[in-house]
């Protein structure tokens, strides 16, 4: 099943959280599978992680599929690490965010 690509803006902070939520909601409403892409060098904070997690839960409960085009890296990975998300990951979380990548 082909995924609908959704490229998010380069600033993924709390100031832009509301429109990002709308983008995600609209994409998941229209498409069965959505693939999210974070632009290279994008800015991110905890509100983005919360939003993507919320979207992941939304997709699960509505029988849709949400994925990331590439494993979290750069600023997004930094937020996950500093925020303590990588300490006790469940497999689904690890699969989604890191594409099963092991933490060194």
């Amino acid at each position, binding site marked *: 099943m082909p995924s609908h690509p959704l490229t998010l803006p380069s600033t993924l902070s709390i100031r832009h959280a509301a429109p990002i939520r709308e983008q995600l909601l609209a994409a998941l409403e229209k498409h069965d599978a959505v693939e999210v892409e974070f632009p290279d060098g994008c800015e991110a904070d*905890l509100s983005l992680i919360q939003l993507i997690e919320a979207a992941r839960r939304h997709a699960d409960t509505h029988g849709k599929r949400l994925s990331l085009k590439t494993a979290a890296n750069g600023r997004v990975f930094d937020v996950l690490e500093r925020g303590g998300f990588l300490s006790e990951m469940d497999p689904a979380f690890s699969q989604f965010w890191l594409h099963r990548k092991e933490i060194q």
Partner: protein
Amino acid sequence: MNTMDPIQVFRTEAAELFEQIESGLLDLLHDLSNQDQIDAVFRGLHTLKGSGAMFGFEALAAFTHHCESAFDRVRKGEVQATSELIAAVLEAQDHMKALVEKPNGDHDDMSQKLLAKLHAAVGGKNGHAATSQPVAAAAAPAPLAPARAASTNWIIKFRLPDNAMANGTNPLGLLDELRELGECTITVDASTIPGLAEIDPTTLYLGWTITLETEQPHSAIEDVFIFVMDDMQLEITEIKAAASTEPAPKQAEPPPVAEPSAEKKQAATNTGPADAKSNKSAENVRVPAERLDELMDRVGELVIAQSRLSQLANISANIQLRSVSEDVERLSGELRDTMMVLRMVPVGSLFGRFRRLVHDLARETGKTIELETEGETTEVDKTVIERLADPLVHLVRNSCDHGLEPPDERRAAGKSPQGRIQLSARQQAGEVIITIKDDGRGINRDRVRAKAEASGLIQPNAVLSDQELLQLIFQPGFSTAQEVTNLSGRGVGMDVVKRTIDTLRGTINVVSHPGEGSEVSLSIPLTLAIIDGLLVRVGNGRYVIPLSAVEECLELSVEDDMRSRGRSFISLRDSLVPYLRLRELFRTGSKPDPFQKVVVISTGSERVGLVVDQIIGDHQTVIKAMSKLHHDVATFSGATILGDGDVALILDVGHLVLEGQKQEAHLRAAG
């Protein structure tokens, strides 16, 4: 409704922090080992740094970090608080203000210069490298205390308020600070994140559990949360005390929700307990001053409209209209009174800043100066407070520089080497009296006279009363200072004081005793917005006399009027009170009413009667400024709009009393 600009919110918060830090530093000067004050200053600096970093004031955060580090060392007993350190931090604080006002300005040179002073004050090369980090370095946590014998393991659980991120708190920054304390394992609880349809994107749904092994004490962990602690859930539990030579801190079984440490509790005694603080913040609303001004204008317009309604109702036979008019009058009066209370601020907010000024002046002049304040709770309209600041600065500077003698001179005169300046405020009728008193050398009248004669202000050998002579110091360009200093002596300032007090419809009184000191009293109306007035008629014009100055009203019979011609005194309970015939003063040209009235007004102990044709009654007076054309008309302090749309001029009580005194002196001199 407009939301406030977050940057402006920070600036307001920073201003309060600066006040708190400055007050703590100045208190500390009196007792350099006062741990409570040391803690208070540290907390203020820490909060300023943290808030600054959150709102993007990186330069401020980086610079403040160094001051915070210096005080952290004092707090931990590594260095002593000294007057040099306090002076350095006070100076640094002025720089922080500049960093808040102009965050993108070129401040590096000044930063380096001040940090060098700070470095020297905390022990130079032997001390902690307070200036060893580049100024541009981002705000980092305070340097750690020397390692203790062993580490302790802690479990820290915390959850910030829902709106934490929206308010600018960065949870990642807090986690980073915890990492700085020691070995950390951080896990996040994301279980409460709702689905995408339900999520509020600005709400924080996360909580954290951290296991931390650190040599730092419990208080160091609390310090991480110091400026968010009031509203958050925080649990810090010691899980293991490794082989330590020191007893473990008494934190073995902390309660589930953050219990303030002794240190935090102490802060609570200064600023109110944490709960009380939360409650207080819920009960108080911060309102920009311009909104209050706007509301005041609206109330002013309402009072004028109500006045018009009352006038229409009074000539109407409609009982219902009269009833409604009375209700509106009552309500607008109550609204006005409430509004006036909202605008009143304690004069202590003004006095607070003079502690710093006197401290700096003492250092600059090499004098020892003690500042005493009294009546800080006296309330005055906020506009008056704002406009009083500059005149008071001039007067206090003058007292420090010219008034107080150097310590040697004081000793030689048999005085204490420490000079004293007293700032006091009290209410009297509708005025606030602010007094600046020093115990210095007093004003040298011979020098004042010589200077005034030399500058052509008075004729040689002119006969002047003592008050008239002393008032010469408020003339433009007047100065008796032998040498020009940084502080004063340029003849600029005292005339500005006079001008400002005049615009506030106030008066200045000077008392000075050679060798004992001087006292300058400023009498200022409590408000500049709306006053209760007594509406009177003189000829065909109507005038308002501020009700607070009115003592009584008498009838001036034709016989009394005839009898007193040429003397203009009335006998009032065995004392003679001079009076002014306003008809003559205003040259109305019309015939006087057969039964004229005398309105007796006073300022302090001075009284004068004003003869008017008719007393119309009390009147809520919305004060409007006179046009620039009429700015120099001293008899009137403003104007107001009456209910019928006519304009009535407001009489300047201070000026009229002065005129009355002059008339009295003239008549007495004439025998």
